């Protein structure tokens, strides 16, 4: 799958220290090339991945990836080099297991190849998922960027919103067949058909103090600015920084890999806390108070995503048709919609990525979800991420009566120094 056989370069690495030193040096070289605007080899990219056991039994990472044609060779405890058996055993990077729920994949391959490889891995395993950083989460992480960086440093934020389901009626049917996850990445000249709908993608690079002063005002004026899909944590020890993407990808645009890794561990710890909080609060279960068959009560909280503006009838219809009328839909949901009104639908369905049940009420004003216990919290984060990206960038989310943003805030504040 990948053009470069990095195995030749990394095969001699036999310790964590060795890997870090190698990637540190590699990052430093790339930084020099970036300065000269002549990047000869791809930057270091990391992908934060969540892995869970479907039936309560969590498989060892080696076993899990082996079933997908990936072989891991242990370098040190919780560190592996990665070989793709489908590519004649080609070495493609390293996997470092951070906790029993998250690992990170480090690679030196081109973005387009590495993105595809990771996406393929995730799509083909219900036990793997991206770490989903929604616009709401990024807005809180932005405050950590402000806290951690000097005001004169430069911030880099990418905003991406595409009102995917807001369409002109003529384009309606074509869109169903033509949905492309990377549609915003195409050059405009490549588009053969002009589709009128809101689509925003732009990058803001300015001093942190300037962005901090203006961002919330700008967001109030123009809601797509809530849909942050990429945020840079400036490096504290040099120029550049670490670009976090909404799907858990992190590109190292600094000359230091150790700092890159520290930032990944920091964000993963925030995400882990957020995940535990959302699952604890949102999971519905029938709890037996006394002995089985006696006192039963339902515990849990509904997840509510409230749209800033009501969806039009066309948009609502298209969203439902697109999400439940075809198997390969962007939200990765399945269910038979029970129509309760022109803008109200119930679905007792499935999160098709994780193969877990999810009950949904979808209206022009909100999406409400009930997650039976065991449904991974990532379902919530993916839902929020996709709603902000494709339906309403200014949507607010709640788990019960607690605003999701508050939970991210609490999670990020709770990450403290650990010896």
């Amino acid at each position, binding site marked *: 799958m990948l053009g470069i056989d990095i195995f030749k370069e990394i095969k001699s690495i036999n310790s964590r220290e060795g890997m870090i030193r190698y990637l540190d040096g590699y990052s430093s070289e790339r930084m020099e090339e970036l300065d000269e605007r002549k990047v000869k080899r791809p930057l270091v990219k990391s992908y934060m991945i969540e892995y869970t056991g479907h039936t309560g039994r969590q498989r060892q990472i080696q076993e899990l990836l082996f079933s997908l044609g990936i072989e891991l060779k242990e370098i040190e405890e919780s560190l592996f080099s990665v070989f793709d058996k489908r590519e004649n055993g080609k070495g493609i990077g390293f996997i470092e297991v951070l906790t029993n729920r998250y690992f990170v994949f480090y690679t030196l391959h081109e973005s387009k190849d590495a993105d595809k490889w990771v996406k393929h891995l995730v799509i083909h395993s219900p036990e793997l998922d991206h770490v989903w950083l929604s616009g709401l989460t990024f807005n809180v992480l932005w405050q950590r960027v402000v806290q951690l960086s000097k005001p004169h440093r430069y911030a880099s934020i990418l905003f991406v919103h595409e009102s995917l389901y807001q369409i002109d009626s003529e384009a309606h049917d074509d869109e169903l067949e033509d949905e492309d996850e990377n549609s915003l990445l195409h050059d405009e000249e490549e588009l053969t058909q002009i589709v009128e709908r809101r689509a925003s993608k732009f990058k803001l690079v300015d001093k942190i103090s300037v962005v901090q002063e203006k961002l919330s005002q700008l967001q109030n004026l123009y809601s797509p600015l809530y849909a942050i899909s990429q945020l840079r944590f400036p490096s504290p020890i040099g120029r550049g920084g670490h670009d976090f993407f909404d799907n858990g990808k992190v590109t190292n645009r600094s000359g230091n890999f150790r700092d890159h890794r520290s930032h990944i561990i920091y964000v993963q710890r925030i995400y882990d806390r957020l995940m535990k909080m959302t699952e604890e609060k949102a999971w519905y279960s029938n709890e037996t108070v006394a002995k089985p068959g006696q006192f039963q009560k339902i515990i849990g909280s509904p997840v509510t995503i*409230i749209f800033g503006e009501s969806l039009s009838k066309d948009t609502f219809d298209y969203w439902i048709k697109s999400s439940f009328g075809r198997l390969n839909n962007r939200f990765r949901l399945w269910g038979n919609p029970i129509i309760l009104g022109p803008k109200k639908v119930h679905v007792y369905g499935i999160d098709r990525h994780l193969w877990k049940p999810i009950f949904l*009420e979808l209206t022009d004003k909100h999406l409400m979800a009930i997650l039976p216990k065991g449904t991974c919290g990532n379902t919530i984060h993916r839902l929020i991420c996709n709603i902000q990206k494709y339906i309403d960038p200014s949507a607010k989310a709640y788990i019960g009566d607690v605003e999701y943003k508050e939970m991210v805030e609490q999670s990020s504040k709770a990450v403290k120094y650990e010896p």
Partner: protein
Amino acid sequence: MNPSIDELCKDALFQLNLAIWLTQPQAREHSYVYPLFYESGLNIYSIGPLLALPPDIRISIGDKLDCQDGARPDLILESIKASKKYCILECKASSFSSASSNAKQATTLLLLAGPIVFEVLGLGGRGQNLGLLCYLIGSSQMQLMDETFDILSREIRNLKLEPGAHGCFGLTSSQTGIFLEFSETVERHLSLGRPSPVEVIQLEEDSDPRPLYFIPYDPNCMDQQSKEEQEFCRRILFERILSHIISEIGGADMPASLVFTTEGFLNSATFGLYEIWEDNEAKKHLRRIVKDFLMNVASAFDEPLRKCMSYKTQVGWAFNISNKATQAELLKQLMKFKPETLDLSKRIQPSLFDDED
């Protein structure tokens, strides 16, 4: 789906699901069902618990009072405020008189809500506190219901026993919404955060006001349900069972041998309430409905896939899936299955093998 709102307010399953939603924490600025109970500090303590009268009470009653040895109310609410209080909640279509067949259950519930409430709930000793018995009825006939409670309470007191406090929640509707009405006694006892009436659901034009159902089916409510509501509930039940099957098959490692029991399906579809229902005839009927549904699912498979699914008596429904391609095809066909195309009001006849699963 276009139910009459008045009919819906009288439907005990709608009432039960509404009562559960009233206890759910929701976004302050936008709640589909206004969480009156949650905001008033009322939690679900138990759903459908079986509560028995203590022996001394049963001896005192003898045959002097028409009541049961125990009862299974729909819900018990617990106030989490400073002094713990418990509300026994029972859902009914409408008010009834002291001569009605429902009076026997009401008398039992009045006794259970009395000074023995802590004892019967296993929380402490007798006389520590009083409970409250509330009937949630689908009309504004709260006064008639209170009169019935007064008569039944008098009968209890005549035996030198003590009933619990009592009251009603009435569900009514207008052009704009569904309202919950209650008396001052109920408001005071439960420290409700708002005075009666409270609009609990705002009606939207041409939209069915039903919220997502936690409990999609209850055999005890079926007799009181309209045909439309019965079909609606059966559809939800089938959708939930289908999603359970898809979830299990989709997440299984191949090759896989998966076995499902009808009881397992029903428990997963009712948040575990199936196993506590006592009406064995109703449960048997429900199992028949589910079996029929699964036969329909199996018959919709293409020929090569049919052999993947089989029913074995004493075991259940077995899916033998040999590889990923078969898994993918099975999932594809399951996901194409539409319970709405079935005859949702079909009467299922008993079979010779009813008791085998």
